[in-house]
């Protein structure tokens, strides 16, 4: 201990500093500062160049749990599920009347022609009122009569419009291509996975083309609504580009808050710079390792920046305090490095662990997020724990700011003069307040737990949950549901049969039974299947008589009807049937009920010849995702807490201290779940990582406060005194960063992408509440768990050996000594 303290002698110049002091790492870094800077510069240049290659993309298959049996079934049969293909629906509405209007029809024709020419459109299967495949059929005394719905002699005259109206009535397209109120009609645009020149479909470009058409043709008379996976992805990518604005906003806000706190432009800029360097390195490493940014991982650079600011502020604060005490900037930097490197490293490692456990979740986007975040945090160890102190050792801080920081400390020299806030916080180390706080926390935990029992899995809102309820896309989607009656939540059951036997009566009978059973489940709006088509077609073939509404046990009839059935109900080789279930919503209960019923039905009815398989369609994929998310939710908490507890035990060497640090985090996790219930946010792919991230980042605060508190307590200070010392060294920066980070992420609320807004509000809550927990509940628990007095001698002295280096070194073990010196300094 003695030799260490020798370096703490007041040192306004570098002359008396022993450059051979400190551990190997410190000597390696600080005795070769130019080399470290040069290496960092080269790394920044190289990775900066790499970062220009980063791609922003959204891939459908990355957002789904590809390992889940349902998704495996879906991907196995994807090519044959033509009815579930990627298609756009473009509704063209007449604002002033019905579709039997010459001007409306002219616009529809022009639009239809233009869309026909867009790259990636599967032209053979495109459908609108104007395509020849749209026909009417009528029963006559002699059989069937029919033709295209637009009369061959169409010229816009009232007579031909009347003929069109009659044809539409006979076309069976009302509710399909033509709205129930006949004021709008649809252009149905199936898409190819690759354009004719072999390039993958560019969703952003397609979406932009569609928006251009919308801008051109939407008018006082015409309203255009577009839905479909391609449009949704296009809108998401567009929304992602706005993320850059949030990023810039967050940089300004955090830098502003930091500057307001330190009043030192120089060091504030350095902290921001180092955090940005970390982001740049991360963005450079991602394409180098073959990753790209998607809607989920685009938030990671943001998070890395925020965490970097938190650690950077701790380092800067330490150096500023030391310089204020009169040390040379290099000595101050080395001192701070010694004092806080281990705490910072442990904190960053626990962040990294918090991110890394997300790898357990079998959803590629979350795994990518885990990798990206782990890389980012690892990079921070270099940029903010090493590069920043070295840069500060060159540039220092402004003398005025250093004096200011010192004055604050001086004001704190006696309990009576301490800042009101510190006195308030100190109350939590006293019996009365500590008891109240612990009891209150226990009550909140119980209440929060009870509320969190209602936590829902999955998305709770209608339409495209990725986007906001009032986004253009969701308004369009709601219009489609209203005008055309078909729900956008589609669940599909696949039925595997022997080749060529998909129309066998015994098989269709089972499909028919399942179809009927599912239609009686809550949340099911309607169904469609080859069995249902057989019922309807038999009515049609029987001159429309409803008495024939039956799945007739007549194989010749079934074969005949199947031969003329539309694509989508069965595949080319007649070995796969699809049962479509249209849902009124995609709430978890709806999906769970549906999935459980189909599972039981399949268990009872699957034979060698017919297998009912789950699940396709957006709701089917969501059902599988929900199952994975639900399981991962608990597993992830188990792993993240396991890892964090282990790290705390290693760092603190005390189960009592570990408990003090962990309990506030647990309370935050519980309350976060309760908050999700209250805000109507379900656990889903977007919100699943939040609790892990919250625990990972929350442990930072506890580590910084608890490690300082332990150092002082082991040096013999009372709990109150040790807590106060921890507060003024690291605690106030915890407060600062907690608030800063929360302000930074709360701006996501304005994101056009709904899940980013959800993540923002939850992360902000966790940042603030973890901070509150670390500052109030932690000392209150310490009052009960870490009574200091008699153990001071035994436990206060660190163990010899490796632990010697791990324990942060503080320049002033004795409070009296310290205040006396401070007094001496001011009298100079």
């Amino acid at each position, binding site marked *: 201990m003695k030799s260490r303290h020798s370096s703490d002698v007041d040192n306004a110049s570098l002359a008396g500093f022993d450059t051979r002091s400190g551990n190997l790492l410190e000597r390696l870094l600080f005795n070769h500062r130019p080399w470290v800077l040069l290496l960092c510069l080269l790394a920044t240049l190289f990775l900066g160049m790499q970062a220009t290659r980063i791609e922003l993309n959204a891939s459908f298959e990355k957002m789904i749990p590809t390992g889940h049996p349902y998704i495996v079934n879906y991907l196995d049969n994807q090519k044959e599920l033509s009815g579930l293909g990627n298609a756009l629906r473009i509704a063209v509405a007449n604002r002033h009347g019905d579709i039997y209007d010459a001007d409306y029809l002219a616009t529809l024709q022009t639009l239809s022609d233009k869309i026909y020419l867009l790259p990636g459109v599967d032209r053979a299967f495109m459908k609108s009122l104007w395509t020849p495949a749209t026909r009417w059929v009528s029963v006559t005394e002699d059989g069937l009569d029919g033709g295209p719905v637009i009369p061959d002699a169409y010229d816009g005259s009232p007579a031909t419009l009347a003929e069109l109206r009659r044809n539409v009535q006979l076309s069976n397209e009302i509710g399909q291509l033509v709205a129930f109120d006949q004021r709008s009609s649809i252009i149905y645009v199936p898409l190819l996975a690759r354009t004719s020149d072999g390039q993958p479909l560019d969703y952003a470009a397609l979406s932009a083309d569609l928006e251009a058409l919308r801008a051109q043709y939407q008018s006082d008379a015409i309203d255009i609504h577009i839905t479909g996976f391609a449009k949704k992805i296009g809108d998401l990518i567009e929304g992602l580009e706005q993320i850059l604005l949030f990023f810039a906003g967050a940089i300004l806000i955090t830098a502003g808050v930091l500057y307001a706190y330190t009043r030192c432009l120089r060091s504030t800029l350095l902290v921001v710079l180092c955090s940005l360097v970390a982001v740049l390195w991360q963005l450079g490493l991602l394409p180098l390792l073959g990753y790209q940014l998607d809607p989920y991982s685009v938030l990671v650079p943001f998070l890395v920046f925020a965490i970097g600011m938190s650690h950077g502020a701790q380092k800067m604060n330490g150096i500023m305090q030391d310089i204020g005490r009169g040390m040379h900037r290099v000595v101050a930097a080395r001192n701070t490095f010694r004092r806080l490197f281990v705490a910072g490293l442990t904190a960053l490692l626990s962040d990294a662990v918090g991110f890394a456990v997300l790898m357990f979740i079998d959803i590629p986007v979350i795994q990518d997020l885990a990798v990206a975040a782990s890389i980012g945090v690892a990079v921070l160890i270099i940029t903010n724990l090493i590069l920043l102190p070295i840069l500060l050792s060159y540039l220092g801080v402004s003398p005025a700011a250093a004096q200011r920081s010192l004055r604050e400390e001086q004001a704190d020299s006696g309990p009576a003069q301490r800042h009101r806030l510190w006195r308030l916080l100190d109350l939590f180390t006293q019996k009365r307040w500590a008891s109240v706080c612990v009891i209150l926390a226990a009550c909140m935990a119980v209440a929060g737990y009870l509320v969190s029992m209602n936590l829902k899995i999955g998305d709770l809102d209608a339409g495209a949950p990725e986007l906001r309820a009032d986004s253009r896309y969701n308004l369009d989607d709601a219009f489609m549901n209203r005008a055309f009656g078909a729900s956008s939540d589609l669940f599909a059951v696949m039925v595997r049969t022997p080749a060529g036997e998909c129309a066998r009566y015994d098989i269709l009978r089972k499909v028919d039974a399942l179809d009927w059973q599912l239609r009686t489940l809550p949340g099911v709006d309607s169904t469609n299947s080859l069995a249902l088509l057989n019922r309807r077609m038999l009515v049609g073939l029987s001159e429309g*008589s409803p*008495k024939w509404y039956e799945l007739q046990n007549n194989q010749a009839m079934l074969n005949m009807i199947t031969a003329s059935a539309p694509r989508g109900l069965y595949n080319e080789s007649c070995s796969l049937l699809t049962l479509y279930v249209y849902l009124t919503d995609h709430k978890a209960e709806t999906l769970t009920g549906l999935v459980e019923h189909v599972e039981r039905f399949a268990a009872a009815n699957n034979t060698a010849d017919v297998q009912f398989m789950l699940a396709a369609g957006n709701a089917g994929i969501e059902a599988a995702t929900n199952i994975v998310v639900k399981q991962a939710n608990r597993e992830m908490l188990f792993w993240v807490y396991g890892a964090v507890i282990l790290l705390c035990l290693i760092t603190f060497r005390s189960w009592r201290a570990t408990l003090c640090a962990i309990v506030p985090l647990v309370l935050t996790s519980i309350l976060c779940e309760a908050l999700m219930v209250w805000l109507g946010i379900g656990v889903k792919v977007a919100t699943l990582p939040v609790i892990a991230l919250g625990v990972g980042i929350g442990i930072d605060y506890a580590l910084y406060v608890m490690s300082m508190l332990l150092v002082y307590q082991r040096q013999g200070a009372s709990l109150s005194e040790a807590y106060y010392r921890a507060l003024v060294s690291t605690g106030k920066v915890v407060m600062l960063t907690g608030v800063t980070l929360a302000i930074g992420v709360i701006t996501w609320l304005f994101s056009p992408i709904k899940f980013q807004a959800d993540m923002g509000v939850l992360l902000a809550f966790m940042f603030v509440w973890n901070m509150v927990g670390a500052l109030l509940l932690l000392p209150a628990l310490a009052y009960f768990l870490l009574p200091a007095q008699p153990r001071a001698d035994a436990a206060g002295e660190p163990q010899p050996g490796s632990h010697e280096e791990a324990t942060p070194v503080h320049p002033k073990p004795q409070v009296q000594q310290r205040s006396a010196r401070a007094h001496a300094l001011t009298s100079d």
Partner: protein
Amino acid sequence: MKRLQQLGCVLLALASPLSQAQSDLLVGDVLSTSAMPIAQAQQAVFIDLARAGERLVAVGERGLVLLSDDHGQSWRQARVPVSVSLTAVQFADARHGWAVGHAGVILATRDAGETWQVQLSGVQAAQLELDAARRELADSADPEAGEARLQTAERLVAEGPDKPFLALAFTDAQHGLVVGAYGIALATDDAGATWHSLVGRIDNPLGLHLYAVARHGDDWFLAGEQGYLARSADAGRSFQMLESPYAGTFFTLASGPDGALLVAGLKGHAFISHERGERFEVLPVPVPVSFNDASTLQDGRVLLANQGGMLFRSTPAGALKPFGKPLGMPVSSLVQAADGSLIVAGFTGLSRLPLHDTPEAE
């Protein structure tokens, strides 16, 4: 009390083991699988309606039978032992009724529709017809026709029960006639305990589908495919073909209290006869949409419903006048409830037009 019953149901459901529930889901033969109880059953596909005294009875897809004791305001599901679509229902009195349907099913109830028993299925119906064809071949006046009938009957047996009965008429709780696809016709004189084939006594050489039966006194009428019309002057024991005014299919027949016979069908064609079907007057086609059902109201007026959901009434002047606003949904059947309101059934379920919505006069 109702709460207690609900609780009982829940407990019962909880008590039944899972394996039980799974075997319940095993899909069996339509003729041996009871109709599944469902919530919101009145939104299913319904095909025919009847009155059992004050009670309303609706039959439809997958063995659905619904009962209403409040003139169609609320419905509950009856227990039915089959899950084939039921195409027609009729009550001889307030308690005794019959329903027919696909797979040659004849169901009977003795408790006003609460429970139903299978009296006959298509397998037995085909066998009855085959036995009759064999028996009557000997004393057939036209051996060629008798031979053809025998071949048809043999095919009927070979093909299995895939054909529906489409209409029925009971004069009392003992005597009734059911007719259906390909000219099949069975009669009973003992409340359905035994049935005998009537195919040999109906003049229907092409084996056309028979869609409707009507009677007025001892005059019975049949209507069916391709304008088929036949009359029995001996209370349904034998039928002779009538000269048809139309070549398209007739789906419905109605006889008014004055003995006028109304027949209607494909593409809005409707005719009326005041001379026991000897001569028909055309009722001008109001819209070219097929008529599915005709029903005689309490005041003697006849209402027609078409597949487009429009209702028409016949006027003494021999014309069809629209009755109320179009319903906007296809109508399979309509019946007047005891309180005067109209109940309609169709592909989108059951609905009730209250009395004040049904104009009494123009």
